[in-house]
């Protein structure tokens, strides 16, 4: 109850601090332009004929949507946690009567308004250069979009906090983040749309969390899924949210018992 009452204040703090470092923030956002760098390659590939149903226009829609989704759901909590564990700043958070996960969650969520503001031009460009035939047309699909994006954020967030919690054992868990990111790059549809994967590799991403962080919301927005398929994927996505959420909370509570504060 007390946690709920403090949330608005935490959001405000997060929003203001994102605003204070807006230049830095913009540079951070621009670092995730890899989808847009991939686009020319795919354009060259689809120059003569569509590839696995992807025409040039469809590739454009895919990677622009990917860029926007990434802007909205990106996470960096594990870096913050690693830093706070090493510097001892975590101790101060622990003194407060709210579970530290709430701090990290509000910090990440509170930056979304600013991220949306920066991602908005990309959305406008995307709409101008592609036609709406590459977007979903069913209102039921669009109703699922916010839920899917929130689910995508939650998977990434819990994974980051769980990896951050590992630093309570390992001294530093940045390398684990890198392994997670490598998995993300290959299996989420970030660089290669999963539909373009060779047949033997096509079903394995469905069993990993990565696709639900990136490829699934894109497919939903670009109308690549039927309502039935989308519902199934949404279910799978939230299963991952649940699993990772449980793992994260368990890791934190065990790790904190080992935590013996550095510095002051």
């Amino acid at each position, binding site marked *: 109850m007390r946690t709920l009452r403090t949330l608005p204040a935490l959001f405000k703090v997060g929003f203001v601090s994102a605003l204070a470092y807006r230049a830095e923030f913009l*540079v951070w956002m*621009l670092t995730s*332009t890899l989808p847009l760098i*991939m686009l020319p390659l795919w354009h*060259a590939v689809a120059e003569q004929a569509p*590839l696995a149903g992807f025409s040039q226009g469809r590739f454009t829609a895919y990677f622009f949507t990917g860029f926007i989704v990434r802007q909205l759901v990106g996470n960096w909590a594990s870096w913050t946690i690693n830093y706070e564990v090493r510097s001892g700043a975590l101790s101060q958070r622990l003194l407060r009567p709210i579970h530290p996960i709430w701090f990290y969650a509000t910090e990440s969520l509170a930056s979304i308004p600013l991220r949306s503001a920066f991602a908005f031009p990309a959305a406008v460009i995307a709409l101008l250069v592609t036609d709406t035939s590459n977007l979903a047309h069913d209102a039921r699909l669009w109703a699922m979009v916010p839920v899917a994006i929130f689910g995508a954020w939650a998977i990434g967030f819990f994974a980051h906090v769980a990896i951050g919690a590992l630093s309570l054992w390992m001294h530093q868990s940045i*390398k684990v983040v890198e392994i997670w990111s490598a998995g993300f790059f290959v299996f989420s549809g970030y660089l290669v749309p999963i539909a373009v994967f060779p047949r033997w590799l096509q079903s394995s991403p469905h069993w990993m969390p990565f696709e639900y962080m990136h490829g699934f919301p894109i497919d939903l927005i670009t109308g690549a899924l039927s309502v039935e398929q989308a519902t199934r994927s949404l279910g799978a996505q939230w299963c991952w949210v649940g699993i990772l959420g449980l793992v994260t909370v368990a890791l934190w509570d065990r790790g904190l018992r080992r935590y013996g504060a550095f510095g002051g």
Partner: protein
Amino acid sequence: MRLERHLAVLRANLRLSFLLAMQYRWEFLLDGAMSLLWTAAAIVPLYLVFEERPRIAGWTYGEALLVMGWFTLLDGLLKGAINPSLVTVIEQIRTGTLDFVLLKPADAQFLVSTARFKPWRLLALGASIAIFVYAFSLLGTGPTWGGVAQALAMLAAGIVVLYSVWILVISVAFRAVRIDNLRYLFEAVFEAGRWPSTVFKGVLSFVFTFVIPLALMTTYPAEALLGTLPWERFAAAWAGALVFAAVARGVWLRSIGSYTSASS
């Protein structure tokens, strides 16, 4: 005399970096494993793309792999020899300890650019050689000695440009202290160097040839290995690299001249 002293400094710095790296052997192993994983992850999209098309933007799979090989090599150099030093200097600008560097009786640009190395990143050299061997075995030919010489000379020009871009980034850091994540931005843009430059059309093609000459760093050396890089383009590229270096040095001298230290 001056040169000798600078060489002694370089030797001492290298030794220190090696000793530091030896201290964290686990990090070394993980770093090595990670860089192999990243290289493999980077080849996957290329492999998938060429599964579908024998030739993209005028390049076959084997030829495009050569570009990837040079990219891997430069990426290793960037993260092993250039990046660590520059991270150090940006930190020094922020904390004010750069003053101690400036007091030392050697060229400041030399000192800051040799401050720190991550020797393990240079394992990328091995990875890139593996890629070259694989690529040439696919092509069914080998490079000529002339081609190798031209490619290495081209690579040297690429390193000059890469280094100059970095010096420019630091010069920006002198003015805007909180812009330390610019390096991530450059790393993100640098990713585009993994594709043959003919993939990019229009504005991007211009940018990646003249503004941020990625073409010069990865595509030209690959063409040199294939024996298709005309000498006049080679000469023009070297001239461009020298201009780049001169501009960077000039901007550096100006920035360091107007630097007023963070501590005072």
